[in-house]
């Protein structure tokens, strides 16, 4: 087992365990921290794969922005005594388990039988290549999403102003 494999297993374990902790922990603050760790472990796996740009974007957007957003949401709302207690309805639990089991089986089947192209050159998504693709091939889609984001920003400002008045 080489070092890369070792670190992959470590990070994968961290990602999965913290993902489980997001659901299992009692207090929302602990869940948010678990979420940050899960995102971080996924970013580390991107780094191991050599996709550094995607890894950094993962850290910037998910750990740096989304988690902070969640923490703010947690601080601004009443949460202290609200717990997500066990659901009394048995049928829902059973249905949930069956659904998740099926999903897992389907995904395992798809992953195992997937026909991955096995060319010698691995594709390395460096920042330069992604930039060229984004501003060349996908320019219209890029501008379209930029328009969407701008309109969302303006909408947020309008709503916030109305509430402030």
């Amino acid at each position, binding site marked *: 087992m080489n*070092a890369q494999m070792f670190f992959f297993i470590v990070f994968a374990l961290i990602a999965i365990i913290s993902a489980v902790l997001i659901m299992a922990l009692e*207090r929302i*603050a*602990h869940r948010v*921290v678990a979420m*940050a760790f899960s995102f971080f472990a996924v970013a580390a796996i991107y780094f191991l794969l050599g996709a*550094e*740009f995607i890894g*950094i*974007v993962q*850290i*910037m957007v998910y*750990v*740096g*922005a989304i*988690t*902070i957003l969640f*923490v*703010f949401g*947690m*601080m601004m709302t009443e949460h202290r005594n609200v717990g997500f207690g066990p659901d009394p309805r048995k049928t829902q639990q059973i249905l949930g388990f069956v659904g998740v089991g099926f999903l897992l089986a389907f995904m395992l089947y798809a992953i195992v039988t997937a026909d991955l192209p096995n060319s010698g050159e691995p594709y390395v998504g*460096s*920042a330069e290549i992604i930039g060229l693709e984004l501003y060349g091939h996908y320019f219209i889609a890029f501008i379209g999403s930029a328009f969407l984001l701008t309109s969302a920003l303006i909408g947020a400002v309008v709503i916030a102003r109305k509430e402030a008045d």
Partner: protein
Amino acid sequence: MDVILMVVYAGIVMNLLLGGVTFAILFERKVIGYMQLRPGPNRHGPWGLLQTIADVTKLLMKEDIIPNEADKKIFVLAPVLAFAPAFAVFAVLPFTENLSGADLNIGILYILGVSSITMLGVLMGGWSSNNKYSLLGSIRGIAQMVSYEIPLVLSVLGIIVLVGSLNLRDIVGYQESIGIWFIIPQFLAFIVYFISSIAELNRSPFDLPEAESELVSGYHTEYSGFRFAFFMLAEYTYAIAISALATILFFGGWLGPAFLPGIIWFLLKMAAFMFGWYWLRATLPRARVDHLMNFGWKVLIPLALLNIVITSIIKVWMGG
């Protein structure tokens, strides 16, 4: 084998950093002391050299207090969350031509991305203390860090446009090839970087998150002993990282006349940049919250954008 080398490198950098932080604090106190016409710390060791070591020893020997009403797990985790990203930044910093960590192609992005996690530590520390001063301090700190991160990143963009690479070594190499440090062609960017780095680090005159006169001591009010030392360590580690980045971006990294080795030039430039912060701290009063936000959003961000536009026009005009 590589893994062992990495661990050894990280260990050495860690130890050097601890020493560096120790003397950065002493340097700060001495500089401010002389500027205010007093000798500064001078009791421990010759010229007060052992003052910080004495302080740290005191902090380590203090009782470890965790407030009863605090969220204990998060309270314990927060200083680590604040320190780890500040230290992780050093993984990609090149100190000289031969002495550097990972030669990452997106070095700048890595630094800017990882350092933003420090916010999480500050926020968690303030929130979990269950103290209104801590909470107010951390909310202020986050608002300030989020808004000043934008001009910080935008001011760096001008250099990236000029060099055409996100690699830190390429940036220093480009400065070597054009024979001029970026502080001259990118002076506006340097001013924006300098001011927003102060705000990003919560240093005076923008130290509103720890404003003693209003908030006792901000987000780490409830912290004492070695957890408090950890927060201080995180702050100064991040400060050293930011000034090392400034050295690479604006002062040509290890470049300099050949009579001194590159690493000495690097450290000298870093110290000069940090001296600028101390100078401001000794001479300027604390800014007000609304002034701070207005200044960030209405002055620094437009200036940084203007710098990008001008740089791009010049780059195209020069036939880049």
